[in-house]
């Protein structure tokens, strides 16, 4: 059986009843019924609203510091003590639960667990804590080249004192509180906005427009149920293979290509959007692009898809 906060049955019943009749001489009840009623109304008044009476406060004194029972305005006072000066529990979904967790949270500070608990308590978000040091290139251990996805140590993300937080919030939203409650001072931290939503790219139903040239344009519309301005990863099916791609970058890169141009270069959507597709055009004025990796640099996130000197 569950209880409401006001009646959790955790304490003895309040035995503080009004004994006006019992205290007054017996004959008062018969001789002065109005006086007895008057005094009983007075005690009713004390219980009435709390605006000018004190009974509520007196009765609450027993539970005033009980996190479970104390009224929310007094819970804020408890939170101010336990929460390192927080003014209230407005940030928390369940301030009573969080108040009980403060001490454990403080003892866990510096651990992955503490960071996860911080985001759960303060922002109701799950966070993924990553240590970018595992991606630092180590001589003798890691292969040189793009495929190894190892990075030279820098003085930011790729260093020993570095934490990467993947959470569905912008860093400014949580920066100050995170530093106050969870961040190990002296560590670099970076936030990645993790956006999870389903996008319907609608390749099957996308409208076909009449081209403004001899070739038709391929126009697709993706409806993504997110409002953040962020880097968005797309997930689509290409000939039975699920592939991921950076929608923003892709849209920008291919915004001017016609369907025929795309068809000319690529045999599948996977090849079209794959970052590793060999699509460089080394030719100057040829209708058929020449593919070569000889002049590639390895420091771009994605290879250039087509050369500026291409016929297309």
């Amino acid at each position, binding site marked *: 059986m569950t209880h409401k906060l006001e009646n959790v049955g955790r304490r003895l019943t309040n035995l503080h009843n009004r004994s006006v009749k019992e205290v007054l001489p017996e004959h008062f009840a018969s001789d002065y019924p109005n006086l007895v009623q*008057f005094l009983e109304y*007075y005690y009713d008044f004390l219980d009435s609203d709390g605006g*000018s009476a*004190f009974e*509520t406060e007196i009765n609450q004194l027993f539970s005033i510091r009980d996190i479970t029972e104390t009224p929310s305005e*007094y819970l804020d006072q408890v939170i101010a003590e336990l929460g390192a000066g927080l003014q209230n529990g407005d940030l928390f979904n369940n301030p009573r639960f969080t108040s009980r967790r403060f001490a454990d949270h403080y003892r866990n500070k510096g651990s992955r667990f503490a960071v996860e608990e911080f985001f759960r308590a303060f922002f109701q978000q799950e966070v993924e804590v990553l240590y970018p040091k595992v991606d630092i290139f180590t001589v003798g251990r890691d292969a040189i080249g793009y495929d190894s996805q190892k990075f030279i140590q820098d003085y930011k993300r790729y260093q020993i004192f570095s934490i990467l937080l993947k959470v569905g919030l912008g860093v400014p939203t949580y920066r100050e509180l995170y*530093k*106050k409650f969870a961040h190990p*001072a*002296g560590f670099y931290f970076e936030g990645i906005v993790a956006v999870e939503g389903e996008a319907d790219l609608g390749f099957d139903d996308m409208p076909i427009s009449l081209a403004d040239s001899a070739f038709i344009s391929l126009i697709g519309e993706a409806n993504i149920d997110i409002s953040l301005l962020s880097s968005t990863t797309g997930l689509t099916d290409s000939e039975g293979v699920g592939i991921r791609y950076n929608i923003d970058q892709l849209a920008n890169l291919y915004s001017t290509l016609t369907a025929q141009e795309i068809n000319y270069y690529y045999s599948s959507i996977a090849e079209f959007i794959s970052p590793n597709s060999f699509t460089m055009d080394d030719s100057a004025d040829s209708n058929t692009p020449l593919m070569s990796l000889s002049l590639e640099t390895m420091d771009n996130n994605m290879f250039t898809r087509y050369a500026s000197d291409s016929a297309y």
Partner: protein
Amino acid sequence: MATTIKSTDLDFDTVKARLKDYLKAKPEFADYNFEASGLSNVLDVLAYNTHFNGLTANFALNEAFLNTSQLRSSVVSHAEALGYTPRSYTSSKANLNISLTIASANRPTTITLPRGTAFTSSVAGVSYTFRTLESYSAQDDGSGFYEFKTETDSNSIPVYEGIEKTKTFFVGETDETQIYVMPDVTLDTESLLVRVYETSGSSTFETYTSLKKAIRITSESKHYQIKEVPNGYFEILFGDGITTGKSPTAGNKIVITYLSTVGPTANGASVFVPTGDLNVEGTNYPITAVTESASSAGAYKEGLESIRQTAPIYFASQQRLVTAEDYKAQILANYSAYIDDVISWGGNDNVPVEYGKVFVGLKFKNNISSVVQTEVKDKIVNELTNNLAVMSIDTEFTESVISYLELQTFFNFDPDLTNATPRATENLVFSTIQDYFTQNLGKFGKVFRRSAILALIDDLDEAILNSRMNVRVQQRFTPITGQALTYTLNFPMAIANPSNIDRIVTTGRFEFNGKTCFIRNKLNQKKLELVNIDGDVELDNIGEYDTGTGRVLLQGFNPVSIEGGSVLKVTATPTNQSTLRPLRNYIIDIDPELSFAQSQIDYQNTQLTL
């Protein structure tokens, strides 16, 4: 400041009116005349009873929380629940080089300066006694000269102000809770020496140490706790003999020696005279005491506001140093007798960034010598951060940087509305501004808000019709004369863009090329020029300033001398004069020499011409 909970309306008349309305609404009393004297008297009594009990309930509510408690005993009690022990009176401490010479050929190799060796010194004509709290030994250097040294081989011997007092307890039956009360409100808890003798006649004893210094606790651990009790005295607690440390047993004698101190009034003592000679093997020899650092760090009991602020963050630190705020909490909790304020930030937030470090800025109390400051910093590292911080994270101290504000305050003043003169009102306005700085700024992280001061000024006198304030920020540095050097000054805010009317960056005066000169930015430019007081340009390009970073760069600056001393003031107009939020270790203060308040007579008449 503490806030208070106001749970019920405590105004007597309101209480009575509500009670009257409540009763009037009842059918039995609807037609009663509540204004009649008899009933009115009864209502008075009941309203008074309500008022009085409501007041008591309100007090009880407020005393239930740290932030709203008004009584020291309540605040201390709440802090204790958070694991925080407020600072007691603290003895003023000086460091002396103590030595002694024995010419006799039959001198010992080692001599000892006993605990309690006393020295006297005067502050403001009042004599105070300082004494050692440990014994120190000295070795014969071969010529009969003995210099006393600490365990770490330092010749800096600390002496503490206070009267040494002893309190003796006999332990009763331990099945009853034993309470050992130290009836002295000026006791310095750091000076306690707790010795437990087996019986009243025993000469051997066991020394108990503070639980704060405990690393591991077993049933045999000899620790004590000390806590302030509601009447301001202190209570000593021992373990239970099972899990929380050794407990004195029935028949034991507890002898507690401590210093009863005057606190900060003994700060500033600089000449120390031994109260007696040192007896070595039956002969008295005079002690020589040379002051290494004058007395400082004496303090009263920790104030309520300080407890309110420190206890919650101390609880959050849980005796660990992980977040930047943990450093602040632990340092304040342990060294507040020396320090007014602490700020800390991770190397990730430093400029330039330095990962793997935590930066700490300390604002020492007045009159803390550089020797003591260094000593405190060493203690923080050796006793605190090296033990409690995340491994491999280093602590680096930074000096606090003061940004002085030059405030030009103008107010319209109608003499018809007051008896005060304009000059007297100007003085009042200026002292109000200075008071505002004393009470609200001068610490880390304290923000200057121009409108807050102007509101105070406007409320000072009915004759003050309105006010305005120009705000400029000043950084100071000491240039090396006779050398052309580059100096970079960082202002803790963005500097205004150049204007075609006002100079945004200016400096104080100095001698250059045999002339009195100063530096200013060129109109409409960020370039700085060096000009003489006649306005002639001596150097066309002496540097520049950057608006966004607040940086002022002086290149090849080679003054002959600085007017009025060695410190050059560089002043800049901030982009936002309304709000100045100091960065990291910056503290905002006022430069009273370059600030003023000026009245403008305003009879509030309609003007006929401009």
